[in-house]
């Protein structure tokens, strides 16, 4: 099983810290799972121009292909201007419409204000649903005060991220099994 942790911003550290913690929780509990961190701050991404994702080169090609090869994706997003960052939306725009078919996607949100709690439900989930993701419905919402010097200091958040890690793997295993059984039943 391949899981990609996608830190969806070009700036800041909190989202990266939370995604890294989730991937670490996955690796510790499920050593067979291959995890990869993609922090958009590390890559020079082009804006989508509508071409097939295979036709992008350089960092853009690497990031899109890595995401397309994953079985599950943990998306971490900060909240900018009451929405997801443009950098993250660009990732969705770069991918095909059915990019998340047969993939599980789970979410964590880092925000400066609890007033942004609904952003994932109202803005991120509709995109993922359109792109045919199987979602881990419960996302982890993390506030600024939960971090100190690039570490998560709120134990409740750590517990929630551990549950997110577990739910991501369990749901991926479950859907893979269901799909394999269903595909075998077609007998072609």
């Amino acid at each position, binding site marked *: 099983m391949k899981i990609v942790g996608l830190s969806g911003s070009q700036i800041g550290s909190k989202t990266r810290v939370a995604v890294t913690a989730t991937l670490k929780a996955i690796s510790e509990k499920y050593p067979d799972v291959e995890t990869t961190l993609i922090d958009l701050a590390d890559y020079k991404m082009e804006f989508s121009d509508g071409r*097939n994702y295979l036709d992008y080169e350089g960092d853009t090609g690497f990031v899109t292909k890595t995401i*397309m090869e994953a079985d599950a994706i943990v998306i971490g997003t900060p909240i900018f201007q009451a929405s997801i960052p443009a950098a993250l939306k660009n990732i969705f725009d770069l991918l095909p419409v059915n990019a998340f078919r047969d993939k599980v996607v789970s979410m964590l949100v880092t925000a400066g204000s609890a007033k942004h709690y609904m952003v994932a439900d109202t803005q991120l989930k509709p995109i993922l649903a359109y792109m045919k993701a199987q979602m881990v419905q419960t996302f982890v919402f993390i506030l600024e005060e939960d971090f100190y010097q690039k570490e998560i200091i709120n134990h409740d958040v750590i517990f929630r991220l551990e549950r997110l890690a577990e739910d991501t793997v369990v749901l991926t295993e479950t859907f893979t099994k269901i799909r394999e059984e269903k595909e075998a039943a077609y007998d072609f």
Partner: protein
Amino acid sequence: MEKYRINPDNGMEFGIYTLGDHLPNPATGERIPVQERIHDIINYAVLAEQAGVDFFSVGESHQEYFATQAHAVVLSAIAQATSKIKIASSSTIISTSDPVRVYENFATLDLISNGRAEIVAGRASRVGLFDLLGYDLHNYEDLFEEKFDLLRMINENEIVNWSGEFRKPLRDAQVLPRPVDGSLPIWRAVGGTPASAMKAGYAGVPMFMAHLGGAASQFKRTVDSYREAARAGGHDPAQLPIATAGFFYAAENSQQALKELYPHINEGMKKTNGGGFPKQLFAQGVDPHNIMNIGSPQQIIEKILYQHEVFNHQRYVAQIDFGGMPMDNIKKNLELIGTEILPAIKKYTAKK
């Protein structure tokens, strides 16, 4: 229709197209040498002609896993090896070629084949060829529209006066040689959406509509939009042929057909498009109302006749060889086409 060398009284035409893909056979993981693939394609056209197929076309794709980048050259070999079957591109990417050169090639092809050549012009679904051939992808749409217009102008006029954005003007330019009847049938490749079909309709250009899968009734909207746009553009839709093109596979029964075809489509699409074909959607392909022509010969006859009833189109074009399909399976399909499917389709669609 005469202008496009089509006589509806003879019934709907049955054609075959290949993208010219060069993919491994998923059963073995092996790819035949490219030289063998090209010879197979030429032989495929010869065998199609022997089976009574009306039309054979070869695609142009400039990327990994394709072999017929120089599709006009391959078509030229086919022209020489055959005598009756119509031959065309599917598609020529006009956006990244000089229309003068394309016309010279296909007019020559028409002379070699004694009046059997046609051009289907498209925009490319993968875009690596823009870099390869020295064009800017940002001009994707404008390049196609301008060059397609010029191609059609050359077809209608032996002496051309033209100016545009992407090449130097033509002043009293004579484009030679001229094809057998003075002009070639030129089609616009359409991806299946009404918006794309309407562009062909407004310009009064025959439509070559490619489709993957889905309900035939869904594509009826595209066909209707095309004809409406043609009327709005001052053209008579009754004079404009429509071709549909998509997956085809015949076997003893539908389950066997699915079994033999699916791995080729799924694995081939993963390599060429970056995503496979879901089994759930593919299984629906055998439904009588699905536009994919997969099943027993009798099921396919019923599907094609149903599609003809829905679209009233003039030509159906089958894709059989995608994804490293072995020649033996192709031959078996051609036999079923020649002995069972084609005669039935002609019988039920011919007007005389």
